[in-house]
């Protein structure tokens, strides 16, 4: 009996790793393998393809890094990457500026209504993401609700030209990702002891200054968590730029989709995906590192 216990423990530890191996590492290796292949008119649309594991060594010399070289040679790709990072960064900043007051107000609201406010933040996520983004088309299009409302108010006399621009993409991302920014911010602001602000005031610090010296540093874990939580998926976002953005809104998700379904160039599409992953691994590692440090500090 005693000998079996270590096995059970190993099993528990191995389970998440097994999960990651089957559903993350294996697919990634397949994508990586395709990215080293050459496109061809066939089924599947690339060579080499293996019929058995034994063939891997045989055909390995057919692998090529041409696809990566191609990515580097065509400005479309790195401007797509750059544009994605830029849009994600600006969106993160906007989310922080909108989400912080949001979370602050929630954390300061009477205890009794906080669960309800929390519910209201989460509630929209219960409808389909796609439907919510479609709804924004109805709001933002020239003959849509927003323009009609502003014209009715007399603020503008011409319909707005927001639809199919980068502005629409920002609106979409900020709307869709707001809960992911607000929730971690709320979690860290809610823990903040209000006596600390009293202590700061008592020591001669006016409220606006106490906000920068006490509130912001102590909510930094929430700021970092929220920022990563929205930045990483925003970089790879496809649905929002595809539906709300114009043809001039470059984002790597769209480029990847076009390579894959438009050009049927699986190897280049795979190379795009691998590079995107590498781009995102860096901030993820930084995030993990910071989380580990926090856990350490909390001990």
């Amino acid at each position, binding site marked *: 009996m005693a000998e079996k216990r270590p096995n059970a423990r190993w099993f528990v530890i191995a389970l998440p790793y097994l999960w990651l191996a089957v559903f993350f590492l294996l697919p990634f290796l397949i994508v990586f393998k395709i990215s080293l292949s050459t496109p061809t008119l066939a089924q599947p649309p690339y060579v080499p393809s293996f019929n058995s594991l034994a063939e891997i060594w045989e055909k390995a010399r057919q692998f090529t890094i041409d696809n990566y070289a191609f990515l580097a040679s065509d400005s479309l790709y790195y401007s797509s990457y750059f544009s994605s990072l830029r849009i994600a960064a600006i969106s993160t900043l906007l989310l922080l500026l909108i989400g912080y007051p949001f979370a602050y107000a929630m954390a300061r609201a009477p205890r009794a209504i906080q669960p309800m406010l929390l519910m209201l933040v989460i509630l929209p996520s219960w409808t389909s993401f796609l439907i919510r983004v479609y709804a924004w088309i109805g709001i933002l299009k020239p003959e849509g609700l927003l323009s009609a409302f502003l014209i009715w108010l007399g603020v503008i006399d011409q319909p707005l030209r927001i639809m199919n621009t980068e502005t629409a993409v920002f609106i979409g991302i900020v709307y869709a990702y707001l809960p992911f920014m607000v929730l971690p911010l709320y979690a860290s602001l809610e823990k903040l002891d209000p006596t600390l602000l*009293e202590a*700061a005031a*008592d*020591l*001669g610090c*006016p409220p606006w200054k106490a906000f920068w010296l006490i509130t912001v540093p*102590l909510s930094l874990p929430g700021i970092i968590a929220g920022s990563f939580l929205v930045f990483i998926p925003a970089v790879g976002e496809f649905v929002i730029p595809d539906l709300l953005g114009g043809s001039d809104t470059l984002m790597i998700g769209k480029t990847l989709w076009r390579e894959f379904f438009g050009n049927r160039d699986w190897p280049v599409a795979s190379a795009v995906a691998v590079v995107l992953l590498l781009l995102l691994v860096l901030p993820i590692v930084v995030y993990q590192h910071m989380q580990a440090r926090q856990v350490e*500090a909390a001990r």
Partner: protein
Amino acid sequence: MATRALGPVRRSFAPWNDPTAVPLIRFDKVTKRFGGFTAVDDLTLDIHEREFFALLGPSGCGKTTLMRMLAGFEEPTEGRITLGGEDMAGRPPYRRPTNMMFQSYALFPHMTVEGNIAFGLKQDGMTKGEIASRVEEMLKLTRLESFAKRKPHQLSGGQRQRVALARSLAKKPKVLLLDEPLGALDKKLRQDTQFELMDIQVTLGLTFLIVTHDQEEAMTVADRVAVMDKGKLIQVATPGEIYEQPNSRYVADFIGDINIIEGRITGASGGRVTIGSAEAEAPLTVASEADLAKDTTAWIAVRPEKTRLSLDAPPAGTANALTGTIFDIAYLGDWTVYLVQLPGGKILRVSQANMTRTVERPISWDDKVHLWWAPEAGVLLSR
């Protein structure tokens, strides 16, 4: 010539007895209401410079609210608070010459000990050199030199308490407010810290206002104690006066142990008042100049340590002589506390100092005993 005093006194320090002295802090008919609840009720109180003043009372009596109004965290609903002659109305906490040591310490968790102490000094726009030397001075005063670079979560409870003290003292405030400052410490450390606080207060020559529910703490540290109940001051006096001359049953009962016997006034003459009580066979006598009408209800309060207890009857004619049965005994080492049941059923508390290691005729459970006290030992209370 020896003067009689109630408890120890700091010689030549009693500005509250000097009618020409101008108080540093003045609460003038201050009322504070939270919705329908009156936390502080039409309260008037003067506190003098360099005084160590204690606000004492049970939780919810309004003592913390009173302090928070002085710090500026609450505004009085009615009345006026002046500090050093200036009306504090509408002045935010960050512009008041008071500093508070919080009950929870409220140390900034993201700053080091040094950073916490320097925080208030930085707000005053002091130069780096001045700040550094003041921080150094405070670290030395509170014996925290070796912990300067630590964060609050790396300190023990006692060390955190000293950081909180150092931080609130760093700006040399006109008034230091201490909100239950020692509540989180264990008994031994608390007693040591009480003496330390008194030393620091005298050394720095500052005015301290302490809020506490611990009567022993208030008595130990304070020059004067204000006993509060339901938003009102019941008695403001030196610890000695509060203990020896309580002005009401509430104060007598709140401070230390006491026996209170209810009765009716039967006579008053020559500084003696006699009371007839259902609890005592004979009339009780108490030294008092009070002029109370015959037959009004009054109470005699007598401290356990001022009551004599013996197996033998006192000489005939001894005042306030009662008999009873030992109901219970608590041996505390330095003291033994006897609970004596009177024939009427009332239980009185009598304590005796154990001045010798052995006792010839020990008093035991169920013994018939005699107890008595001098007329001067009791206090006559009319409310």
